[in-house]
């Protein structure tokens, strides 16, 4: 057993990807920062110094405490507190949880939708292909944020306020997800067009396998490489889209603030000098998005045979 694990590790270490990873210090740093962000978000309830959503533990008298290293700071609150006396560091950790959760879920949704449509479009061709690709073209002519705003706006009108607040996060996932499927569909369709004329697909067809089975079992595994790259970069975009929507006040409700909501709330205090309420969530957002983006870039280059 141990030998098997050791063997697997040795093979992984020797793999092309691992090799190019070891050679790029920027990527190692990015991976480390991503790990820190994801880790502190994932384990926020255990590692965060305070629980900012337990109103019974908040003390209004601690409001507007500056960061610990400044004159009026308190060691209790490393990055200071906001207007309600919430610890900024803890709100960032909890906020990153929402941001990452929404980002990942949106990417998953987007990828599932895009890959399915791309496969169908590429493999079946004909009118369906033309239809899906025209829809994709039309959607590409709008900025993604506009599509997300549109979907969010429609659900706001359609649903009563209380209901909308309950499901705001799911609506957001849907909105960001729908706004991003086109890239997946186009890429997968292209690869599918190439793959479907190869001998192994022809063979599968000759022995009478169901088209759906061919798409899933034979074509799909051979088009996942590019999808993975797009998905990694898309995570960063999705987090930014979520932050933008929340900054505009149409994203997650303030009762479950994401990083974007925190930046928006803190923005009110920027002119009056309480910079830490908005700057730290903003910095956290930049670090998170930048490191995920760098990872995505590296993955794209590493998987591109032409660059080897």
């Amino acid at each position, binding site marked *: 057993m141990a030998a098997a694990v050791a063997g697997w590790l040795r093979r992984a270490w020797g793999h092309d990807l691992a090799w190019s990873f070891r050679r790029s210090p920027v990527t190692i740093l990015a991976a480390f920062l991503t790990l820190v962000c994801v880790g502190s978000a994932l384990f926020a309830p255990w590692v965060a110094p305070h629980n900012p959503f*337990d*109103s*019974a533990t*908040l*003390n*209004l*008298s601690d*409001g*507007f405490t500056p960061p610990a290293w400044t004159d009026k700071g308190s060691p209790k609150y490393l990055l200071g507190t906001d*207007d*309600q*006396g919430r610890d900024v560091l803890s709100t960032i950790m909890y906020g990153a949880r929402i941001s990452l959760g929404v980002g990942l879920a949106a990417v998953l949704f987007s990828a599932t939708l895009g890959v399915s449509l791309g496969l169908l479009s590429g493999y079946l061709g004909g009118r369906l292909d033309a239809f899906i690709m025209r829809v994709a073209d039309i959607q590409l002519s709008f900025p993604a944020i506009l599509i997300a705003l549109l979907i969010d706006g429609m659900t706001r009108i359609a649903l009563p*306020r*209380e209901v909308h607040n309950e499901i705001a996060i799911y609506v957001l996932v849907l909105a960001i997800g729908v706004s991003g499927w086109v890239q997946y569909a186009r890429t997968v369709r292209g690869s599918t067009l190439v793959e479907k004329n190869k001998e192994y697909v022809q063979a599968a067809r000759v022995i009478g396998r169901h088209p759906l089975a061919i798409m899933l079992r034979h074509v799909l595994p051979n088009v996942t490489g590019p999808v993975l790259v797009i998905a990694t970069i898309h995570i960063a975009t999705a987090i930014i889209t979520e932050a933008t929507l929340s900054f505009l006040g149409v994203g997650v409700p303030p*009762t479950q603030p994401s990083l974007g909501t925190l930046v928006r709330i803190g*923005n*009110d*205090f*920027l*002119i*009056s*000098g*309480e910079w830490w309420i908005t700057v730290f969530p903003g910095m956290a957002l930049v670090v998170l998005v930048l490191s995920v983006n760098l990872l995505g870039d590296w993955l794209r280059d590493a998987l591109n045979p032409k660059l080897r």
Partner: protein
Amino acid sequence: MKLRILLAAALFAAAATTQAATLKWGAQNDILTLDPHSQNHATTNGIMQHTYEGLVRYTKDFAVEPCLATSWQLISPTHYRFTLRKGVKFQDGTPFTADDVVFSYNRILQPQGTMQIYVAGVKEMRKVDDHTVDMILAGPSPILLRNLVDFRIMSRAWSAKNKSENVQNYVAKEESFASRNANGTGPYLIKLWEPDKRLVMQANPNWWGKLDGNVTEVIYTPIKADATRIAALLSGDVDIVTDLPTQDVQRLRNDPKLKVLDGHEVRTIFIGLDQFSDELKYSSVKGKNPFKDIRVRKALNVSVDREAIKRVTMRGLSIPAAIMIAPGVHGHAPDIDKVSPADGEGARKLLAEAGYPNGFEFGLDCPNNRYVNDEEICQALVGMWARIGLKAKLNAQPMATFIQKIQKFDHDAYMLGWGVATFDGLYTLQSLVRTKTTGADGSFNLGRISDAKLDALIDALKTETDVKKRDGILREALVATRDNYYYVPLHHQLRPWAMKRNVTTVHKADDRPESRFARVD
């Protein structure tokens, strides 16, 4: 030749003294309607006073002075005779007569409006001749003239022509010609109103009075976001900003290009509680209403740390409140408005005595764009109550949706602020504490409090003309309201305004800038 030079010189002199100016005014909220009898809403009233006038108006220091009535006499203690101003024309050109006053009186009484308080105590309005009206009162009224300031006169002919004889039913989302167009007698004409965007007013060239200042055009822009509103002032896009975010006041004071006009507002911010329903709508307690228990109400009151709200949330710009009226309102006395420090332990004990040792859940409705830091205050309250075991579920909404919700009694607890247009405590007691009937009594008693003893005191206030005796009753009523914990008073607002150095105006405790007093040099 000489004459020409003289003429030019005269013209030049005239131009120099009355140089027309535009005042760009930024505030937080838009008005709700242009119908002057529909919504008793401070922002709306603040714009209305520019275009619609009443029989009397306030001077800069809140004395009552003649406006559309030039004089009045008391024929008997319950019979006023008003002589109306002659030669006044509405903005559409129709002449102003006694018919319009009688018409407006009947209109403001319609139950779908919320402005009846301004003619409270008036039993009948009678036309004597074209320029005289008689007002018959239900009983002697010591504060009648102050009440009448916000009773604004509409043209009967214009309303009939435009099918606007009925007051707009705002809660039912009705629109009418009068809710979108204005036709008053006042100093300014409303040229344009694009809701939530801007409202443009122009000086009325046919106005009977004279502007104190030189402002001939007012552009009112509602800017909801605090930071944006302040940025607009700093960058010079607006000349004056009301509804200042508390956190920015200090910075504005330090800016050499700006000045801050300090002043308090006769407005008290409080939490109201449903004390009528048999079961709260959003509560974990079923089958009974915990707010009917005075111990629960007392616990809600004593657990609030008003000093912390003042220091942190309001940055010093509030006066912690124990009673429902602010300093400056007749009836306020410092000795009955003393706030004791928060007492969480005592509150917990009271809850246990009332049978809720583990607290309970209830809904808290809040506006998020109406009062200074309204949503932040509610969030702070949620924390303070959480510490005694009460879980308030906060629902913060824009004023327009919030006010419709609470006027339908669809709430457990709600935040509201009450400004006193008449500068007399009766106004607050009658609107907020008196048992609800149709009309002015209990018009905003949204918790549907009903206390026969207080009702009797409040009714006595309406007619008592012996000042000393009346002051005693007023004090008794205010203290009874406080000691029954019918409301949770939070604080009285301080409302500085910020403006460019070249703007001069008069700070008014009703927080309504009047453009006729403003100068831009």
